[in-house]
């Protein structure tokens, strides 16, 4: 039996700082699974990792078709990295459609590993190829390895009690094994995973095990590859790490928030891509007292959360843009009745149904203004998958302390992307508990003088029976009021309450010079690309800093001061300029937007080039 401990004869070992691999295949080929296994293994090995799953909305688009291509890009490095990489160093293409949709991103000289068995006349036709690119010379700028993966895999699985179709389903493990060999990864984590996952289906488990090992052994015994690559572990801060996606971190963050608040978590939700994984995760935490409710629609989901908040729970709902639009009337009710609630929006490309699995930052203005009348709500946005944990707790803290709904903006890239996450100790987390109001005299709309929060008197509390609702409230008593001056006063109070949060959040910090030629200001998932671009520019000697807003409403108190410390401000966003609009309106600062709305994260190079143009290197 071959194992990874054998000496690597006649093979060069090249040490690299960073490698980016893209796995692409049919959506039935298991590319997401392959990518996730490579990610786990690489994270456990100690590299810094960043991933970008890219899959179609159709569960099973016609096999071999262009829309059915599913991809997973992973970048791993021996130093801190912030993005899944602009372009792959290696493309693994399991069929002609995957090749056709992805090869354009592979730079000349890049390694291209293809499953030549899949390049049948029929598949070539489905992918729109008139001739076979493996033989017509059109790929000569790449370093092509055409490997009959299906045939080799079938050989390795001979003798197992499986149909030919079942056998072929495990070929992704062959490809994975080959990549493990090429990048000196251990097969152990994946073998352990197979053991667990397929315990009840031993034949499938054995097939996957054999496929993985066969792929590894193929790399070792074939003379096709003359070099393997070593990417040494990264120097991460001390601590215990795990790999985490944004949606996993969001779910865990709210479980932690409920514990820190001393309340039960009630989660009302309706299935929607790319937010459903939060429901799946929370539904499995029943022994934490988490109550999940799969509602009949988006409105019922937020309605149940408001009812739960009224009853004293830590209340949460999540959706994506189309669902948030449906929730807006109920969200406004929460504004009026001033109950604590967190609304998670895992943004996706729109408008309307848009591109459900693709990322975008298009809902910032909806979060800010997408309700009738003046309706202020705090808005927070984590910048990385790991930060989704911390900002879940922060969103809950603000909701409870200020008795307000809070919008938490994630996006498809954060939600599905993964990175190593240092597991925080419970002692590092803040106490966010707020006591229920039990004292008399009691006025439902009396306010805390500092936070302007109203008291939270939950049903079941003797003597505090009172009525709330969506009609305008008289100040202090909370009785229904149509008094003109009272309405003006209450509109101002609601706005002041949210604006006052600016004093209770961290100042905006700039990474780089504290004043200079250019500030690149971002929010949300653009963090990695902006940080990488900034560091490259700094290394080239430019006077450039990066600042990232996690609190979008209110913004940190020093935001204007930071922006005014630079000659120019560049604001990259995956929308047509929503933060730019807010900054211009609020501070009268002539920020410059960089706006690409392609359903994909920014590449580092996009931001670097835009910055260079602003810095005056036009035409270089």
């Amino acid at each position: 039996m071959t194992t990874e401990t054998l000496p690597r004869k006649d093979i060069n070992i090249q040490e690299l700082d960073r490698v980016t691999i893209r796995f692409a295949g049919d959506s039935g080929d298991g590319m997401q699974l392959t990518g996730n296994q490579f990610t786990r293994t690489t994270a456990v090995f100690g590299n810094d990792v960043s991933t970008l799953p890219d899959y179609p909305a159709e569960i099973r688009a016609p096999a071999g078709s262009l829309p059915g291509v599913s991809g997973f890009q992973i970048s791993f490095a021996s130093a801190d990295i912030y993005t899944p990489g602009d372009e792959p160093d290696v493309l693994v293409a399991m069929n002609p459609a995957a090749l056709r949709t992805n090869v354009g991103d592979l730079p000349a000289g890049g390694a291209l590993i293809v499953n030549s068995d899949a390049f049948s006349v029929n598949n070539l036709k489905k992918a729109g190829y008139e001739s076979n690119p493996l033989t017509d010379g059109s790929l000569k700028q790449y370093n092509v390895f055409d490997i009959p993966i299906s045939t080799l895999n079938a050989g390795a699985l001979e003798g197992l009690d499986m149909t030919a179709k079942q056998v072929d389903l495990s070929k992704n493990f062959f490809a994975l094994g080959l990549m493990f060999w090429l990048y000196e990864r251990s097969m152990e984590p994946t073998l352990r995973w197979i053991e667990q996952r397929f315990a009840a289906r031993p034949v499938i488990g054995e097939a996957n095990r054999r496929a993985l090992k066969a792929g590894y052994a193929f790399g070792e015994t074939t003379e096709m590859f003359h070099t393997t690559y070593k990417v040494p572990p990264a120097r991460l801060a001390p601590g215990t790490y795990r790999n985490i996606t944004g949606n996993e971190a969001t779910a865990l963050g709210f479980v932690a928030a409920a514990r820190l608040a001393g309340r039960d978590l009630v989660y009302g939700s309706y299935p929607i891509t790319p937010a459903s994984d939060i429901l799946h995760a929370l539904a499995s935490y029943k022994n934490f007292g988490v109550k999940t409710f799969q509602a009949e629609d988006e409105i019922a989901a937020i309605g149940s959360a408001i009812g739960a908040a009224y009853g004293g729970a830590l209340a949460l709902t999540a959706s994506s843009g189309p669902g948030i639009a449906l929730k807006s009337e109920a969200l406004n009710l929460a504004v009026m009745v001033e109950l604590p609630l967190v609304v998670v929006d895992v943004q996706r490309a729109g408008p309307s149904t848009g591109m459900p699995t693709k990322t975008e930052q298009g809902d910032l203005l909806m979060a800010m203004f997408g309700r009738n009348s003046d309706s202020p709500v705090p808005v927070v946005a984590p910048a990385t998958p790991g930060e989704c944990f911390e900002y879940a707790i922060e969103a809950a803290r603000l909701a409870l302390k200020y008795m307000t709904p809070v919008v938490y903006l994630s996006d498809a890239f954060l939600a599905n992307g993964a990175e190593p996450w240092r597991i925080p100790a419970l002692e590092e987390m803040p106490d966010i508990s707020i006591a229920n109001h039990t004292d008399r005299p009691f006025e439902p709309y009396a306010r805390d003088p500092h936070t302007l929060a109203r008291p939270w008197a939950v049903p079941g509390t003797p003597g505090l029976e009172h009525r709330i609702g969506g009609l305008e409230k008289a100040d202090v008593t909370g009785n229904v009021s149509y008094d003109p001056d009272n309405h003006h006063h209450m509109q101002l109070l609601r706005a002041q309450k949210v604006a006052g949060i600016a004093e209770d959040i961290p100042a905006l910090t700039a990474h780089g010079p504290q004043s200079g030629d250019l500030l690149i200001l971002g929010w949300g998932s653009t963090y990695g690309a902006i940080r990488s671009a900034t560091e490259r520019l700094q290394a080239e000697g430019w006077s450039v800093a990066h600042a990232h807003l996690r609190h979008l409403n209110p913004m940190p108190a020093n935001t204007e001061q930071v922006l005014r410390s630079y000659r120019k401000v560049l604001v990259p966003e995956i929308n047509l300029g929503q933060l730019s609009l807010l900054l211009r309106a609020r501070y009268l600062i002539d920020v410059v937007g960089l706006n690409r709305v392609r359903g994909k994260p920014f590449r580092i190079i996009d931001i670097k080039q835009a910055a260079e143009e602003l810095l005056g290197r036009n035409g270089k």
Partner: protein
Amino acid sequence: MTDKNGGQPALSPENARVIELTRKDFVSDQEVRWCPGCGDYSILAQTQKTMPDFGVPKENVVFISGIGCSGRLPYYMNTYGFHSIHGRAPTLATGLKLANPSLMVWVVTGDGDALSIGGNHILHSMRRNVDIKVVMFNNRIYGLTKGQASPTSELGKKTKSSPAGTVDYPVQPLSIALAAEASFVARSVDTHTEHLQETLNKAGYHHGSVFVEVLQNCNIFNDGAYREFTERDVREDRMLFLQDGQPMVFGKEHDKGIRLNGLHPEVVQLGNGISEKDLLVHHEDAEDPYLAFMLSRMWWPQFPVPVGVLRRVERATHDQLVEGQISDAITRQGAGDLAKLLASGETWTVSR
């Protein structure tokens, strides 16, 4: 915090004597602002009268409403109250029962609120057997918006929004409640105060999804909608007062009944060889809903209009099922350990 063990605070006549509340305890300090002569006054009064019967401390009672004239009722009850948004009261009630299953939650709604904008939520709160008591005021019109047709308005009804008459067929609310698997389905009339109080009382004692339709007069926009069969002098001949376990007899002289003819109900005159033995016998707790569904379709003038409890069956409530899964999970896995959860899956340690 959630009362995990207490369950519903003692819904029993014995308890009622211990707690000793009166109607006045349930009257709030807010001035009632429905139109003079509105049927809603009676529904409010009967609700306040029956509340002390349950022995539930008033701080454990919550009234949640949507939008419409009915939506004002929570302001007049000296309990916890939430006047929410149009059609969505059942969703808030569902969430509230998840947060605190020990509360007694009433949902007050109207024909537009429950069956038009909020139809989906009625369907799902009923089928889930959420332990809430939905009382739907049916005046067959939109009152608060000043007189448009509602989902229960008769076909051809002329209203401000349908000057040539509506072209929309109406729905029977109780048929919908039954199809949605409500575990308690009943009907009463605003002006039949004793019957209404008794019906609300039965509703209050039921655990699970309750749907009570109250035929309610809007004297401004749809006056006399039910007059033909609800007036004192005709009601006994034109309405069927359902009694559990009793044959379906009606009429001032108790001389008429409902008999099954093939798959159809028919009105028969007792005597001439037809006795009570030939009549349908009402069973509130019949396992299947066919009898109740048949009753829900009967309407004047073809039939006497049935009032009372059409269906009352017991099954586990939504909050019981949810709490059951949580306690099962805790028994099986132990109470959640946050540090362990955060560190689940593959981990590695970086030391320096």
